């Protein structure tokens, strides 16, 4: 409890206090300004854009990574050595630091990068695709890389859930003549629900605070199109010198993350209870 208070509660309370001030990292004294930072947020178009991008990215990546996670988990749910090795490989992206992932993918997605070279040599494209150079493609690229990273995590979580399903259930279903799809719908999907709850919730939280991969891949560009809210907070604090306002935005992000996590967890838990 002491550690929790020291590393979680104290910073949150300090941030909440700062959000009510006009603190500037270069000035010694901050002034209490009440809710002014919060009312300013209502008219901040850059915040609205970053929040929209963050929420869409979180939804898309969470869905994609968890769907892929279940699929890969089913493929890798074997006990032989080769499958155990493949499980390790599947988890590898999650182990790598976001900065390293960003640098690796930057080379893959560059104008003369690996992806364009492969697509070009296969005759699929005649000119290099600007994966990171146009706003919509840059958003897609961020989603692609984030999905790649998170899929390792969701695969392992779902794999653990799959291994807790009694084999007898599948055997009984097969005796009753259930096909693959029916076995998935009636047994696998409901039985991995606890794993899905954890996986979806952590995926969402990870995406809502995503910073490192975006910072390396696009720096929030082009033209701020991939600026996540976390990136915007750093810019406000250390470029615009507005610690107070940055703290207010951070509190908003914390509130949004908490509300979304609670709703999603509640919905998914209900599904678990229904089992």
């Amino acid at each position: 409890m002491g550690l929790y208070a020291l590393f979680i509660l104290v910073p949150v309370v300090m941030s909440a206090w700062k959000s009510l001030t006009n603190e500037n990292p270069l000035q010694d004294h901050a002034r209490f300004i009440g809710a002014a930072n919060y009312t300013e947020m209502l008219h901040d178009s850059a915040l609205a854009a970053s929040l929209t991008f963050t929420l869409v990215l979180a939804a898309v990546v969470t869905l994609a990574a968890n769907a892929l996670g279940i699929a890969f988990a089913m493929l890798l749910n074997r006990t032989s050595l080769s499958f155990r090795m493949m499980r390790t490989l599947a988890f590898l992206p999650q182990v790598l630091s976001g900065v390293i992932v960003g640098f690796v993918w930057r080379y893959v997605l560059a104008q003369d990068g690996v992806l364009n070279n492969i697509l070009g040599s296969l005759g699929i494209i005649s000119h290099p695709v600007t994966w990171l150079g146009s706003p919509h493609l840059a958003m897609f690229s961020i989603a692609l890389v984030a999905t790649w990273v998170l899929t390792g995590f969701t695969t392992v979580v779902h794999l653990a859930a799959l291994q807790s399903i009694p084999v007898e259930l599948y055997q009984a279903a097969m005796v009753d003549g259930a096909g693959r799809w029916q076995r998935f719908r009636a047994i696998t999907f409901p039985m991995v629900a606890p794993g899905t709850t954890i996986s979806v919730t952590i995926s969402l939280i990870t995406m809502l605070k995503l910073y490192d991969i975006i910072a390396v891949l696009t720096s929030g560009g082009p033209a701020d199109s991939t600026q996540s809210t976390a990136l915007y907070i750093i810019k406000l604090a250390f470029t615009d010198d507005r610690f107070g306002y940055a703290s207010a935005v951070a509190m908003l992000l914390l509130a949004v993350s908490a509300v979304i996590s609670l709703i999603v967890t509640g919905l998914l838990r209900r599904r678990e209870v229904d089992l």
Partner: protein
Amino acid sequence: MRHKILTAACLAAGLALVTGCSAATPAGGAKGGSSLTYLTFETPSLTASFWDSSIANAEKKVPGLTVKKLVAPSTDRDAYAKQLQASGQFPDLLQSITPSTFATAGLLKPYDQSWVDANFLLPLGNAYKGKVYIPPTNSQIIPEVFYNKKLFAKAGLTAAPKTWAEFMADCAKLKAAGVTPIELGGGDPFSASMPLVGILSADILGKDPNWLQERYAGKVHFTDANVETAVAKYRTMVKNGYFETGALGVKYADSITNFTAGKTAMYMMGSWFLGSVPKANAADFGAFLTPTADGSLVVPFAVGGSMAISAKTADPAKATAFAQAWSLDPNNYKTLIEGDGAFPMLKGKTLADYNVNVTQVFKDSYSYVTSQNTKVSALGWATNDDSMPSGLNDAFYAASQALFTSDDVHGQMAKLDAAWDSATK
């Protein structure tokens, strides 16, 4: 319960100890002397060994001083200095920061003006509100237009353009000859802004050198017709296909490689690019200034400098002595000139005095600095009173990237005005 409280107390004490140890503590250095912290940054030219040897050389001239090098995690020294300040670790010495950002907060100590006057060509070149916070050791032209003479010849061009109309005509000829006219490393925001910096510096500041001061006073705006007309020139270049199609996906480092490898004919970049001109075929490269409508020369100029001194340093005398020794060391200038394309601004010296091996295109570019001509503050790069407010550079970079794909010049300029007003509120 008592055990838990004790654990928390120990952790807190440990943290305080770690924080205390890592903070910039100027007192109590080796052998009873002073110990100061010095924020530096590394680039391919300004390597760790350069900083180590330059620090060691300056330390020798200040007995009893030990300098601890801090390295910014990126070339954005300002942002890192702010982080250090926010965590109570503001360095004693800070290399090549933007003085206005920190001087307004009273964090910097000005240099003795008589020392500056005695040693530098433009003593007030980077002065902020009449005081010099970083010695004006060197300068840059931001941007120049570098060009590949072989690719010009391939398109039948024999000389660099002098007017904007000639520039556009040359771009058209290059494109018709199958050569991409202009390289743009648009994947890095600062690099994406170079054409706009060139055009606005030439067209707006060239005609009204006080434009930035007038913007501070609210007398002029980015949405003014003359500014929007100038920005529209950039849109014309984009729409005519004078940059490579996927330029916003090209990183700054790759843009240098593309241009030096002969993939594109021209490159609008700060004169620090001179340090990247390949020595083997340096004669293939030339440089000119962003052309104006009437062909008059406008030099977008920025006087840089060495290190600022913290106003809170515990040993101002030794910090100043170290900074002065570093700023006058010819060995440092050799690296800055050859590797970083810096134009030296020491009084009474010629290039030969630095024992440097520079290219002809460097000498040609340096002549713009030493000649009498119209020098204006390079928009967004000046470190003097013409520096833009905190956060404006980022807004300018974002506008530059947006204008690569959007025709909404007025909308982007209105955003810049709003950002300016917010930053100066």
